[in-house]
Each structure stands twice: as structure tokens, then as C-alpha cells.
């Protein structure tokens, strides 16, 4: 049974009291990038420091998909089922083609290198959004080859369906997790440095409205705003002090799941999208939840 701070009665329906946290894999140095592949029922994640993309086939055990991996961070799938990678130390976003080759989607903006892509999500129209935190430039132990920041902002980029790279959000300090509401009218972006989740209304032209503060994370325990996902009812699941914070669509905290080890990200998965997979520095966990997550393409 998982421990939780239950700040509001609404958490019970989302995270049943009898929910168990099952450890599926361990031994990583810095787990991240969890994503469920709906096409074959496999689960994927990374070890940033271990420089590996991991895959766990349906019913099987973990196997190495790619090593080295440019210290890959966030993973997702596009509408064609291709793996998209927030490349962290490669300072680029890249895609793995069906034949296994790698195709770079974004590496420069305005003629200079971007920072270090952190997490990534695909919109229903095919646009790819990713956070561009400067972590691989500054964080010791997980560095890019070139440590210099060239952009004068740390924001959120959009790769349009036509491949055009734009920077709709530039007012974040350390943008990290990002997720759309189920209707895709709002994009949530969390900021590790500020410890908050921001909301941006989406415009039809691929730009965003002004920032609204959605939620300020609570707690003094270890843990930061890092990975973030949304369920089909619009509840937000975000890493933070002590584990995973569950926040209602109104921005109010429903409760915190107390995860052992330092929690880095999470992803909904399994065929009914009602399992919440959680990565920590050293392990991958899974638990059953009450409300399915927003599906990944």
C-alpha cells in the first residue's frame, strides 16, 4: 500500500487506499522519461546518467534499447508511433525511425544551439512541444559536450507539423515537465527552479496566451517539480517534495503520494491507461489508479 498525504477527500477516487507500489526494475543512476507504447504494450524509460534508453516488452523484463543515448531524457511517441527523444546532452530533439536510424528534429534556434531538451509531448495536430531547460549545461554529472548557454531564455519550444521551430513560451526559468489538458486548450508547464506549475492557454496559431499560475508546490522534503502528466478528468500529477503531487483541475492539492527514493517523472500506461508508472533515480515503479491518464499517441 502506498503512503499518501490526503489533503482532500477527492484523492481517494484517484488513488485508492489499497493501491500498491510495485517495483518493476531497479539499478539505474537517474531514471526518467517514462512512456507507454500503446502499439505493442511495451514500456520505455531512460537512465540519463547511465546513458541508456530502456524498454520492457509486454510480459517481459527490461532490455537495453539504446546505449549510449546522448544521455536522453524525456520520451514520447508521435502519431506515427515513432519514438521522440528530448536529447538532453545532445542539445537536440531527435526521432528514431522505423529502420532504427536517428533523425534530428531541432537543434538550433535563431542560429544558435538550444539549451538541453528535457521533456516532450505531442499534440493531436502533430505539433511537438518540448521544454528546453539548461540542465545539461550546468548540472554536474550529466553534462553536454558544450557547456555554454547561447539562448537568452529557457523556454518551451514547438515543432510545428511542418517542422518549423518556434518558442511560444520564454518566461520560464527552468521549464521541466509539460502536459496538455484533455481538451488541449491549456498547456501546463512546471518550473523546477520556481517550484510551480504554470498554465498557458493555447491559441489556434500555435502560440500561447500569458502565463497563469496554476499551482505552487508544497513541502520541504527532497523533491522538485520535474515530470508531470494529466488524467482524463484533468487532474494533474506532478513530482515534487516527497513524491507525486496530485492536483485537481482547479489547481488545488488533492494529496501527495509518498514515493520511496527521489521521484523524477511518471507516465500513464497499460491497455486501459489506468496504471501510473513512476521513475525515481534508481527504480521504475507501477501502481493502479482510479482514473485513466491522457493517452500517448
Amino acid at each position: 500500500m502506498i503512503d499518501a498525504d490526503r489533503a482532500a477527500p477527492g484523492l481517494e477516487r484517484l488513488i485508492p487506499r489499497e493501491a500498491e507500489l510495485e517495483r518493476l526494475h531497479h539499478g539505474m543512476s537517474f531514471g526518467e522519461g517514462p512512456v507507454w507504447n500503446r502499439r505493442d504494450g511495451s514500456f520505455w524509460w531512460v537512465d540519463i546518467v547511465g546513458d541508456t534508453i530502456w524498454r520492457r516488452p509486454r510480459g517481459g523484463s527490461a532490455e537495453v534499447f539504446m546505449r549510449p543515448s546522448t544521455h536522453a531524457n524525456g520520451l514520447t511517441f508521435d502519431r506515427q508511433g515513432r519514438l521522440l527523444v528530448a536529447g538532453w546532452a545532445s542539445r537536440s530533439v531527435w526521432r528514431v525511425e522505423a529502420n532504427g536510424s536517428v533523425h534530428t528534429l531541432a537543434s538550433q534556434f535563431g542560429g544558435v544551439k538550444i539549451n538541453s531538451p528535457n521533456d516532450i509531448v505531442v499534440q493531436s495536430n502533430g505539433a511537438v512541444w518540448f521544454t528546453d531547460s539548461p540542465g545539461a549545461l550546468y548540472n554536474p554529472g550529466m553534462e553536454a559536450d558544450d557547456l555554454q548557454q547561447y539562448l537568452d531564455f529557457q523556454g518551451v519550444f514547438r515543432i510545428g507539423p511542418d517542422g518549423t521551430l518556434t518558442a511560444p513560451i520564454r518566461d520560464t526559468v527552468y521549464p521541466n515537465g509539460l502536459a496538455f489538458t484533455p481538451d488541449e486548450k491549456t498547456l501546463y508547464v512546471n518550473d523546477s527552479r520556481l517550484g510551480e506549475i504554470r498554465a498557458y492557454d493555447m491559441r489556434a496559431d500555435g502560440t500561447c496566451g500569458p502565463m497563469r499560475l496554476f499551482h505552487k508546490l508544497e513541502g520541504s522534503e527532497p523533491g522538485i517539480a520535474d515530470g508531470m502528466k494529466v488524467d482524463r478528468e484533468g487532474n494533474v500529477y506532478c513530482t515534487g517534495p516527497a513524491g507525486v503531487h496530485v492536483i485537481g483541475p482547479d489547481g488545488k492539492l488533492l494529496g501527495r503520494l509518498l514515493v520511496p527514493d527521489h521521484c523524477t517523472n511518471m507516465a500513464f500506461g497499460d491497455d486501459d491507461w489506468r496504471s501510473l508508472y513512476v521513475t525515481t533515480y534508481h527504480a521504475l515503479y507501477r501502481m493502479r489508479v482510479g482514473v485513466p491518464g491522457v493517452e500517448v499517441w
Partner: protein
Amino acid sequence: MAWRFERVAGPFEGPAAGLAWDGAGMLFSILSQGPRSGEGRILRLAPNGGDVSVFRAFTNRTSGIAFGRDGALYGCQELSRRIVRFNPDGSASLLATLVDGRMHNLPTSLALDSRGRIWFCDSKSPLRTSGPLIYPQVDFQSIFLLERSKQAWHLRRLASDLDTPRAIALSPDERTLYVADRQGLHAFTIRDDALDARRRLSERALSCLNVRHDGCIVACAGAALLVLEASGAVRETWPFPGGESVNCAFGGQDLYVTTTAGELWRGRP
């Protein structure tokens, strides 16, 4: 010698710290607070026109800086707990940060020798580290040496048992290493690429050490600059009108001083 000091740049948004003369202009680091200002930058003063330009932005609190014989600038990037190489093409490179699987702590000051090796002092600090600590940090405060063999840099610990070392300098013959910590000024004899005998030359707390060609040490001590003999004896005391000094360095015939108020001052004889 009497110096006439004047403020030539600043104040900037954060303390001014390291200094490095590039042969025609003076580079000085600014420790700006906050990620929006890149936690600091390195500026360059062109002495003739007095123009200040940005040499490097987003330096993540790079404090001590020094040029190597390879023409590159090296710096102590405090929030990233490492020495970095600011390459002439505008990029920046990692050297080495691990000793026996542990990271060193926080470097503040470095000295490069004629063989391109980097001597630096490293102390514990309450300053936050950028990102998570992947590797544990060493539990001592030390002097380290970075050496390059072929393409790889290697890190070696030379001495510990220091009390928050913050300034380091080599004698002109590179046989003596001077280190300032909270206990005063120490001199180590360099023998076979290692530190041998240690002598305590002074009990004064000094924030910067700069060895002149004649072997004397020019040091910052708050609102005064001291000239010390190689023995540690004070030869001269120069009042400094610019407030609390951080670092000093010669550029041509001039003496430049950085201050905690974020200013660059220049002294002329």
C-alpha cells in the same frame, strides 16, 4: 608606491570577482544573482576607450579566471562545482571533476603554470549546486591539480586540512604555491609535482593573491591592498578607496581591483 585609484566600470548587478588580463584588455567576472542573468557573466574592459563588453554570458557564477598558454580562458564555475574551459570559439568544455568517484566541492581560485596545468583551491560552501548531486562530494577542503594527458584531463588531490581556501597563486619559478584560507597565508614547496613542506606566512585573512614578477605578493585585505615579501612580511600597505576588495591583477602598468559592490577599479602609479 602611491597609487591613484579610480572606478572604471560598474557597479554591476552582483559582486565583481576574478580578473584576467588578455594582453590588451582586462576581463572581470560578475557574480550576478539569479538564472535570468545567467548567474553572472564575464565582462571585458578596453582600457583605451573604457568600453565594457560582454566576453561571456551565462557563466553560472564563474569566479576566478585565468588564461592558459593555449590562449583559452579557464574559470572556477562555482554553482556547477567545476573548472571549465571557455574556448576561443565561444563554446565551453568540461575538464575533470571526480576523484575516486567523488566530486570536489566548490572551486574559487585557480593558477595555471607554464605546462598548462591548473592548480585550484576547493572548499565546502553553503551555495546551492545546480541540479541534483549525482556523485557524493569529497569531505575535505583541498588543493587540486588538473593535468592533461593526450585528450583527457585528470584530477589529483594535493593537500587537504585547509580552512575554506579561497585564493591560490604560483611563484614566478613555479616552485612555491601560495594559498590563502581563513587561517592566513600558507606557502607549499612544490617537489616532484606534489606539495611538500607547508609554511604559514601570515595570519591575515586575504581574499586574493597575485604574485608579481619580483616574487612579491599583492593581496587584497578588505579596504587595503598589501604587498608581502615571499617570506610573508608586509612590505607595503596601500589604502584602497573603493570599499571591500575581492581580487586584484596587473594589466600593463596598471593595477585593477574588483569589489564586492560590483565595481572595477584601476590604480595608476
